[in-house]
């Protein structure tokens, strides 16, 4: 078999980013929250309300980079019985109904236990476009896993932060096939803090003339933070703010609409 180049096989996220390279909006949710079977409804609501792509959170008991909102959603989801096997079967079903690009986001340990190879294969057959595993070491990805992800037509999406040095950002840029996830402040998810050097970070990124686009995430919850992200980068990813809406409304469609009201100041 010839080695697949990720650009040649159809990938919904690739297709999206070919059409649209600014003012992108992505929403993160935790699979299995609020109900075990919410996944399909949430994807439907995101697609129906024009969200560009969705991040499906694979719940983990000890999410080091997440604040209380996503921690609690994850615990609830695990308590509801969510696991990778269950998630993939839900995503297989969703794939037949929806076209919105899906990216999986989570931590390495559940993926390790599932088996990285099996994970990649199942993600591919569930129509997943990409994967975000914030605790995957760069060197390990490059040495041991890159080929596996590329063969399965999965973009691997790296995070960068204001503390990531320039040479490392260049390295990440060279391994990136879709976009770079730019965390706009040194903080866990859901923390609403203004980075002192936050503006500087995007200024620096701009001057680096990277090959790939970057999309801003963490702390985006209203029109101010959204507009800033859009001004600074190709798009915005919002997570905790949406989980908060799900906490308040339970109905995914109403929750997405409420989120969009906040984001668009309607």
């Amino acid at each position, binding site marked *: 078999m010839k080695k697949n180049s990720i650009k040649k096989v159809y990938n919904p996220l690739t297709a999206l980013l070919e059409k649209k390279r600014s003012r992108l909006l992505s929403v993160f949710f935790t699979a299995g929250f609020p109900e075990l079977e919410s996944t399909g409804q949430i994807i439907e609501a995101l697609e129906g309300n024009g969200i560009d792509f969705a991040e499906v959170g694979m719940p*983990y*008991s*000890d999410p*080091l*980079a*997440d*604040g*209380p909102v996503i*921690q609690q959603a994850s*615990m609830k989801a*695990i308590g509801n019985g969510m*696991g*990778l*096997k269950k998630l993939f079967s839900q995503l297989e079903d969703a794939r037949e109904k929806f076209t919105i690009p899906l990216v999986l986001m989570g*931590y*390495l*340990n*559940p*993926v*390790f*236990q*599932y088996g990285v190879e099996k994970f990649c294969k199942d993600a591919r057959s569930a129509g997943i476009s990409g994967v975000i595993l*914030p*605790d*995957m*070491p760069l*060197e*390990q990805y490059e040495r041991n896993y890159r080929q596996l992800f590329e063969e399965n037509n999965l973009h691997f999406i*790296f*995070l*960068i*932060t204001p*503390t*990531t*040095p320039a040479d*490392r950002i260049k390295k990440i840029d060279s391994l990136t096939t879709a976009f770079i996830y730019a*965390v706009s402040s*040194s*903080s*866990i998810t859901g*923390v609403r*803090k203004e980075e002192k050097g936050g503006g500087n970070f995007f200024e620096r990124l701009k001057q680096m003339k990277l090959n790939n686009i970057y999309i801003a995430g963490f702390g985006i919850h209203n029109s101010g933070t959204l507009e800033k992200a859009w001004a600074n980068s190709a798009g915005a990813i919002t997570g905790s703010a949406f989980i908060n809406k799900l906490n308040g409304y339970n109905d995914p469609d109403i929750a997405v609409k409420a989120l969009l009201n906040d984001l668009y100041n309607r």
Partner: protein
Amino acid sequence: MEIYPDIGGFYGRFGGAYIPELLWANVEELREKYDSILSCSSYREELEGLLRDFVGRPTPLYFAAALSRESGAKIYLKREDLCHTGSHKLNNVTGQALLAVRMGKKQIIAETGAGQHGVATATVCALLKLPCTVFMGSRDMERQMPNVTRMRMLGARVIEVESGSRTLKDATNEAIRHWINNPAESYYLIGSTIGPHPYPDIVTRLQSVISRETITQLEKAEGRKEPDHVLACVGGGSNAAGSFYHFTGNGKTILTGAEAAGEGTDSGKTAATICTGSEGIIHGSRTLLMQTGDGQVRETHSLSAGLDYPGIGPLHARLNEKGLARYIPVKDHEAVEAAFRLTKLEGIIPALESAHAIALLKKISFNPGSIIVICLSGRGDKDMETFEKYFEKQT
């Protein structure tokens, strides 16, 4: 040698730094600087001075005559319980706090289980005038209240952790999250041989003073440098790493760690990681841990807060795999009984954690007259409530 990690921080396939990018710069700064600082002669002089005058080192290697008679071996207790603040934890804290100062850090973050590491950290921070924040699970705060009071008196901010199992694992999560939120000025002072590289190496090296002293002291007492056995309890593995250090792979000394079996390794209420765990990632390290088939970290149980942790330092995962050390589960009640036995025989009340190591005497076989060194990692003052409850049940 197995006791040192490779350049990537791996002991065989265990260890490494599986951390979110948000932590990368913090950990990388430490990785770049720790070795040269730890090896620098002015650092070592300063550390040795503090270990001698503030911590109270060397700690005695005490020949436990009555325990020896009862057990049929020559038993020496390495008296880490006599360190200032009551446990071996101060060895590591003193070394890391000096490292933090040399890195230009302005405040200290720590997690604690039994509160011993928290107290040690609060103590050195008081000495060095560093602001100190300690994360502690609410369940551990209940069972180790005297240590909470001590930390507060020493000026530390103690933050109650309500997430997850409300014990050491969650306190560690919260400490790491706090570090992510306050990167540049903060030093995360980890309390055991756990976490991402280079922490396991830093803590192992700073605790190696235990076996270094043991060699000299044993030579004086017995005319030989190597004991037949070294016994230590294993939570994250720091007192065990320190007491095994110079004897690892010497071909003469049998190294045995006591894991907390809780109510038994089949009971579902256990913290015996090596015995019942499997390979995975916890707190940035690839090691053995207690987890579900889905890779979710399991809640553990041990009567002793300091051993109630679902992971194990990667060094121990490696020593276990290579057969260079072995790890035996000890149940709650066996540890409590050992604590009472030691108290009666020797007039020494051990920490509940250390009592697990004492209990190994009834679980391992040894030749009559063997020389056995037991690391008495801490004293039992903090465990009075637990002992009292047990005492009431017995009478």
